[in-house]
């Protein structure tokens, strides 16, 4: 267990805040799911952030000032996350990172907005950048941007007409499911089985059975890691032979580890994957594994990218100013050659949405392999 810097209490911080002359640090806060249902994802994200912040501090900080990082555990509770965003802002954070779960982000981003503090989130629910909040920024594109690519892949590459969708009936899955169904129906595909599942569901036999008997020619799997692994294992058992397509979760390291051979053949549309043939990504993966003892996934990459984005954009502004930071990131493009911390070239539009190129990844013999690089949209 890694120990985080515990600072000497609120009153001291308040003193430091009051006396601007002492402000030789830059305060950034990370609010993430360190406990509760989202602990797995939140912890990985937080590790990604920690790695980036420590690197930044080693190399002189931001604008020559050391970064003072504070971590807050939202307990995967939207209410708590809202309170903590408030607390982080009260304690002087000028930019925020987190949260991972969209159900938390949609709530706490209102607080950041009220206070005019830019927030870099890991959430991918479509609604987040559709509310006209000028302070929210993604670290990876929203689910709705990936769906047209997946739909086109199913229709044009696989040549299927009838598809099934297995999704987690949570805010995460619901957002992805809704945009998937809308987009593929527009494309002329037919959704013949629509199977939601519960958070933490263990028994996927009924789900697989329904899809198997629906006549679907391909299935889109939008589940969290453990559930995706259980689904794949049950699909193998019941002999569900149709192509299994998902997003970055489906082909992630963890799912492969959990599902074993059942993961072979699964295909994922991923923006961030350590299978990417990019030296910067490989270097990041090596550093991360070395420090935390496990290999990173997309959430770790998002956290790392988020922290570095704050550094780069703040240095472009030339001063620590929340409003200017937000203004700068809108419409910003960062080239990974010049700004290696973002790992892969990326751009933000004026809603805070991200675009970058993406990959079709397939699990072959227990390894993620990039089968195709798709352009940014």
């Amino acid at each position, binding site marked *: *267990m890694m120990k985080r810097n515990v600072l000497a209490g609120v009153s001291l911080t308040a003193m430091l805040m009051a006396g601007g002359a002492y402000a030789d640090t830059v305060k950034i806060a990370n609010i993430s799911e360190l*406990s509760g*249902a989202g*602990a*797995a994802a939140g*912890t990985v994200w937080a590790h990604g952030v920690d790695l980036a912040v420590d690197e930044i501090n080693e190399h002189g900080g931001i604008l020559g000032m050391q970064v003072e990082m504070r971590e807050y555990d939202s307990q995967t509770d939207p209410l708590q996350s809202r309170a903590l965003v408030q607390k982080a802002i009260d304690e002087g954070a000028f930019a925020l990172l987190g949260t991972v779960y969209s159900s938390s982000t949609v709530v706490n981003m209102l607080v950041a907005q009220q206070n005019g503090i830019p927030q870099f989130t890991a959430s991918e629910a479509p609604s987040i950048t559709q509310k006209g909040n000028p302070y929210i920024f993604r670290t990876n594109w929203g689910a709705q941007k990936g769906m047209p690519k997946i739909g086109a892949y199913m229709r044009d590459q696989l040549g299927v007409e009838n598809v099934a969708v297995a999704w987690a*009936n949570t805010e995460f899955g619901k957002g992805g499911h809704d945009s998937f169904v809308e987009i593929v129906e527009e494309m002329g595909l037919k959704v013949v089985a629509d*199977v*939601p*599942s*519960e958070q*933490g*569901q*263990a*028994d996927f*036999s*009924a*789900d697989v*059975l*329904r899809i198997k*008997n629906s006549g679907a020619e391909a299935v889109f799997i939008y589940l969290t*890691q*453990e559930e995706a*692994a*259980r689904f794949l*294992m049950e699909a193998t*058992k*019941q*002999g569900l032979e149709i192509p299994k397509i998902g997003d970055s979760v489906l082909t992630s390291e*963890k799912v492969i*580890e*959990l599902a*074993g051979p059942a993961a072979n053949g699964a295909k994922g549309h991923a923006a961030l994957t350590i299978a990417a043939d990019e030296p910067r990504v490989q270097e990041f993966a090596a550093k991360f594994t070395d420090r935390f003892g496990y290999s990173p996934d997309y959430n770790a990459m998002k956290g790392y990218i988020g922290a570095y984005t704050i550094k780069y954009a703040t240095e472009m502004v030339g001063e620590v100013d929340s409003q200017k930071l937000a203004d700068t990131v809108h419409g910003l493009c960062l080239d990974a050659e010049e700004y290696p911390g973002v790992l892969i070239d990326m751009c933000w539009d004026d809603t805070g949405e991200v675009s970058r190129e993406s990959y079709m990844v397939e699990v072959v013999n227990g390894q993620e392999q990039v089968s195709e690089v798709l352009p940014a949209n």
Partner: protein
Amino acid sequence: MAELLQILVSGLSAGAIYALAAVGFTLLWQASQTINFAQGEFVMLPAFFVLAGMTIFGLPLWAAILTALVLSLVVLGAMFKKLIVEPMLPHGTLPLVIATIALGILMKESVKEFYSAQGQPFPPLFPQHVINFFGASISIQDICNLVVAFAAIISLQLFLGRTRTGRAMQATAQDPRVAEILGVDVKKMVMYTFLINGALAAIASILISPVYLAKFSNGETLGMIAFIAAIVGGFNQIKGALLGGLLIGVIDNLAAVYVSAEYRTAIPLILLIVIIMVRPQGILGTPEGRTV
């Protein structure tokens, strides 16, 4: 037809494991009026004993399982009884309910902090080879799970009905004061019950984890299912809990396929409410004579 058969087969193999958890639940209730809100976590934990044995101490699978079983008896059986249940029993059910809730949180968070927040693969005990059974797929693993679960419950039933100790345990469950007068060592009998619950939890854990993976939060759903199964089947009958477990396994799958996947968890709950209204003692239960 093949569809229905598949539902039945899958439902039963899941249900057998729910039954193990539910039986332990009813045992504790009978022996000490303990409503164990940590029962789900009891089933979650032994898998991590096994994993810790294998990854940290490098034990082979069989030795790790044996160690886990012993640890479960000690921690989930004896220590639970001695440190938590015993001091609180004289104060009624309520503080104990709270204590088991807290215990559940403690176990869950400890696994998360000291082992891993992420799900873990668990080595299968039985071959995963799949057989086609009149169009339904069933794995050897499922069949073995069913057999082991049934064997455990039947031998427990035989033990309680046919042996002296077993009958003394039943007498204790029915009326501890009378049992004491008849010369039964009540404390010891209650302890046996807790040990049996620990063992059942360990068996359930080791059977379920290869299929459902080992994760710190697994107990949340499992505990709830065990609870429903116990009440539906009959809170004071082992065969009731067995029936309840199997029933919930099958109904859950039936509901997901034929009713609505959104409301699949609602069906067992509605069944629970209906049973309480119509037949409060559960399907196979007998009316309790021991209320104030």
